[in-house]
Structures are given as structure tokens and as C-alpha cells.
């Protein structure tokens, strides 16, 4: 009797695990397919390569980057559609659901990228604008793999690395104005990234920053004390033997020769409209969560 029970239990357990895996039940940890090609824009090989790249990004930068293609959005606005799809399918890493999803709707020929959690800052307004420019030609001409692999995934990797290394979101003042234009219609809020006070990062940066001037100062002081021990020095001049008041300048003409002017073009940092750069515009999804994002047509 006991043996049979054990057997039944173990088989049930195995079946359950199998079912869970096969159903693609998404945990909120990115353990799912990252390429959902509903509109069949990619070949099987292209899908596999893209999946690999997006998985690498997750491993390296702990964010869930996804690509979804559909033939229509069931009547929803693409922004709303993207936000909801992302939320309801449990995408994103960690409790903040860090990640981004690119949606392509072939029916209306529109695209949208939605971001959540850390990705809102990693993919700043300027970053999203850069991705749009990178993808646009390829999307319009039907080279979807190139658009997704290089324009989307490639740039996400770039911006994620930038954010990790510099501790700040990507910003490019020369495009901030154009990037901002998109958010003029609609309920968007501007969010500026504030780094969390991290003791370890602080120590990493400020410890050498204090050691260098600290020891430089100490060295200067010690050197001056050491110099007191040397009192024998050759004299290069005879200033103490100048007869007082004997300096007589008989000719002190100053003649202008030539001049040159160096002109530098100013870096237009402030711009006419935008007074900021490096931040991200966010909005509330219908599900009540904060998303960043950008979209358009191709």
C-alpha cells in the first residue's frame, strides 16, 4: 500500500512540474519565452538567435527584455495593450518588474516600447528616441530581425551597460528636445533618476578621492620640514648685491605685433523647450502601475 502511494505521489509531482513548464506559466522572474512572434515576422532561426541575445541581457543586466508581434491589438490603444500585456503575463525581474517590451502591431503598422521598474530610468527619453531612430528604417522596409536584434536588443544592451558603469541614465542633450516632443499630448509625468545612496559605491568613489589629496598634502608638509635640514645651497643670483635704487630703465617701449582669435561654437545645453535631459516620462497604466515608454508608426 505504501509503495503504491509513493508512486502515485511522485508521478503526480512530475506531471505537475511538466505541466507548469510546458504551459509557460510565467513567474515574475523572466523565466519565459522572450520572443512571442504572433505575427510570424521571424524565421525559426531568427527567433532562436534573438531569444539568446535577450537571455544574455537578462543574465548580465538583470532586466527582462521582450519582443511581441501581433496582427492586431483587439481594439486597444497600443500603449495600453503593451502595458497590460506586460503586467498580466508577469514579465519583469524582481518586485519592481524591471524590464521592457517591444510590441509590433502589423494591423496598424505601429510599434510601442513599454518599460517598468529600473528600465524606466535605464531606457530614458533620450535612449528610447535613439532606439526609435535605430529601428525605423528596418521596420519600414520589413527587415524585422535586424530592427529587433540590432536596433532594439543591441541598444538595450548598450544603455544597460552605460547605466551600470556610470550610475546614471543615458542622456544626449542634442536630441532631448526632439525626444520630449512625443510626450506633449497625454498624461505624462517627468521623472528624474535619483541614485540610491549606496555605501559601497560611495566608498569606491570617495575613498580614492580623499586618499589622493590627503597624502598629497601630507607629502608637501613633510617635504618642507625635510628641506629645513638642507641649508647649503648654491646661489644663482646676486640680488642682495644690487645697489639700492640703481635700477635705471632707459627704454621701455611696448609694441603691438599681432593677434589671433579662437572661436568655439557653444554647446547648446539648455535648448529652447526642454530644460532637462536624462530623465524619463512616465504614465499610469490602466492597471494602476507606473510605466515609461514610447511608440510610433512605421
Amino acid at each position, binding site marked *: 500500500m505504501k509503495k503504491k502511494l509513493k508512486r502515485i505521489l511522485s508521478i503526480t509531482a512530475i506531471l505537475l512540474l511538466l505541466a507548469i513548464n510546458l504551459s509557460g506559466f510565467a513567474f515574475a522572474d523572466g523565466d519565459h519565452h522572450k520572443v512571442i512572434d504572433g505575427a510570424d515576422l521571424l524565421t525559426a532561426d531568427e527567433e532562436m538567435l534573438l531569444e539568446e541575445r535577450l537571455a544574455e541581457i537578462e543574465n548580465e543586466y538583470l532586466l527582462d527584455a521582450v519582443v511581441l508581434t501581433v496582427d492586431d491589438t483587439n481594439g486597444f490603444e497600443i500603449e495600453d495593450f503593451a502595458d497590460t500585456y506586460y503586467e498580466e503575463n508577469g514579465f519583469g525581474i524582481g518586485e519592481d518588474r524591471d524590464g521592457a517590451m517591444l510590441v509590433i502591431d502589423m494591423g496598424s503598422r505601429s510599434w510601442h516600447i513599454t518599460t517598468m521598474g529600473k528600465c524606466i530610468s535605464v531606457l530614458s527619453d533620450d535612449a528610447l528616441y535613439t532606439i526609435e531612430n535605430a529601428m525605423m528604417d528596418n521596420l519600414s522596409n520589413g527587415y524585422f530581425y535586424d530592427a529587433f536584434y540590432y536596433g532594439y536588443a543591441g541598444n538595450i544592451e548598450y544603455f544597460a551597460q552605460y547605466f551600470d558603469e556610470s550610475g546614471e541614465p543615458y542622456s544626449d542633450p542634442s536630441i532631448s528636445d526632439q525626444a520630449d516632443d512625443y510626450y506633449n499630448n497625454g498624461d505624462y509625468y517627468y521623472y528624474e533618476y535619483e541614485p540610491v545612496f549606496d555605501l559601497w559605491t560611495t566608498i569606491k568613489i570617495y575613498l580614492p578621492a580623499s586618499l589622493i589629496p*590627503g597624502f598629497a598634502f601630507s607629502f608637501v608638509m613633510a617635504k618642507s620640514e625635510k628641506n629645513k635640514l638642507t*641649508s647649503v*645651497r648654491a646661489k644663482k643670483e646676486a640680488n642682495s*648685491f644690487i645697489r639700492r635704487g640703481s635700477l635705471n630703465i632707459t627704454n621701455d617701449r611696448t609694441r603691438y605685433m599681432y593677434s589671433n582669435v579662437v572661436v568655439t561654437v557653444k554647446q547648446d545645453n539648455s535648448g529652447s523647450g526642454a530644460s532637462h535631459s536624462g530623465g524619463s516620462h512616465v504614465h499610469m497604466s490602466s492597471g494602476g502601475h507606473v510605466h515609461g515608454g514610447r511608440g510610433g508608426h512605421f
Partner: protein
Amino acid sequence: MSEIFEYKCPNCGGPLRFDPSAQTVKCPYCDSEISVEYLSEQDKELDTITPEESAEWEKADDSTWDETEDGSMNLYVCESCGGEILAQDETIATSCPYCGNPVVFKGNIQGQLKPEFVIPFKLDKKDVKDRYLKHLEKKKFLPKEFKDENKINEWKAVYVPFWLFDCEAKGTVHYDATTVTAWSDRKHDFVKTSHYDVLREGTIAFDNVPVDGSVAIQDDLMQSIEPFDMNEAVDFKTAYLAGYLADRYTLASEDAIKYADARIRQSVKEEFAATVTGFASVMPKSENIGLLSGKAKYALLPVWFLGSTYKGEKYTFAMNGQTGKFVGNLPINKKAFWKQFLIRGLIFSAVIFALFLALFAF
């Protein structure tokens, strides 16, 4: 060879010495003070050359200068004790190694340029000791044992021969000087650099630029105890040498001039450059400096020398016998240096780091 001159006290016959605190010649036995003038009468026979003569730079050679080689020695007999004194040609004054009597070799003075001036010693052995100890004070990285273990094995009061040069320097210097102005409009930043040719032409007079006339004595040591106050210089009388060591010069004035020349030129450059003001940058383009109406004077200046040994190394100290300026390089306790550097460095770094953290808190 009655070329030794020993000053004997007219009162008791004892050996006379020049006393720096009294600034006269005194007899240490009967305390009589003898006027320098009285003694100078005895010098009359030394006046083979008129005192005012000095070597003009235009003169190539002084015909009366005795061209003996360095290093040749002469034998003298001390008139007090009969001991034999072996002395080099350069020596003018010394003490008999047997009886300690001060002696002046007038023969070595004869036949060469007589010193024009002498600054008599103002400070004596006690002063030297005091200043030596003061020299060791407040020296942070001096090894602690130096004060006790440094053996001073030589105290010498020497009249060092110097060439003193007077001249007028004439210079013509061209500078490339710039002024910088900056302004902006809405789209551009402008920086305008204007170049000027600035001329400075003029003269400066120099008095008594000293050059150490003894090849054996370190030049930088003598330069470090400058300056001497020439106002206290007096006409040379051999009486002042009594009780002190003195050498005649081994560097001819024609050879010494190049050292003074270099220093004078440098001073002219510095003084002229200091008059060029109001520019963003000043660079000398061409410098033309000449020395005119030069005069060379030969003088004996008072210097105290201390020779010492510490841990097998020789340390030499010198003190200006008139002003008391005391110089001499001291050894460095390297361990103490690096220890201070490390400790202070850590403290400063900690303070700066704390400031950074405080910045973050607000």
C-alpha cells in the same frame, strides 16, 4: 728667513691675538689692549704695494703676483719656541703647532696683492657653539642621536679670501608678452590673444658681488652664509689676522669673474622681468647683457668652520664670523620622514572622507 711676524705684547711679551668682542688686539696673559694703529706701524715694511690698487678687469695679469704652484711648502722656524713650521704657500696666518703662538707669514703676503679690506671677526668660539646647538633645534627629521653622537673634531676660525666685484650691468631684453580677452554672443565663445614686443633697456649697479677665492673651500658653503655687511669692513692690517687662520687666494680674479658674471646676469634678467607687468604671459625672446666698468677687490672675510663625523659620514658647518648666520646640511632620519608622511596622510584622508560623507547626509 725672518719672514715670520709674531706680534708680541709690549707689556709682557706674550703672544697677541685679535679679540672679536673688543674688536682690538689683546694680550691673553696680561689683558693689555693694544691699538691696531700701533701695530700697523710695524706693518710699514709690508707696504710694498699701495693699498688702493685693485685689479681692473682690463688688466690681463698682475705682474707682481708670485706665480708659485699650489702645494709647494715652505719651512719656517717659530720665534717663540724654535719649532719648525711647515706651511703651504697659500697660508698667510696660522698658529705654531707646538706652542700655539699665532704667526703671520709676511713673506706670503709680500709680492702679491695685499687684501684691500678685512671684516674682523665679531663672534668667538662660544658664539659658534651656541649657534651650532641652535642650528640643531626644531629640525623635525634630524636623527635624535645626532646631537649627542656627532663628534666635532675641528673648530677653525679662518679669514677666507674673497674677490668682491663692483660693476654696472647694461641689458637689452625683448619679451613676447600677451594679453587675453574673452567674450561671447548667443552662439559662440571668442578668445582673442594679442602679442606684444616689449623692450626693456637699462642699467643696474652691483656692489661687492662675492666670489670665494679659495679653490679648496666649497663655493656653495660660502654662498650660503652671504651676505656680509661691508659697512663694517676696515682697511686691511695684518694685526687683525693675529690668532686666526688665513689663506691667500688660489683663484685668480680673471677666473673668479665668471662666477660673479653668471649671478649678475641672472639678477639683471630677474629685475628687468619684474618691470614687465599687466600681461597674461611674458616670455623673454632675446637677452643681451654686458658688464661695464668692472672693479675687483680682494678682501678677507671671517668664517668659522666646524668639521664633524657622524656614523662614518663627514658633516661640515660654516658660520658667518660677522653676522652669525649658521649653515650646514644635516642628515635625514628617513624612517621618521616616511612615518610622519603615512600618519599625517591617513589623518588628512580620513578628515576629507568624513567631509564627503557629511556632504551626502545633507
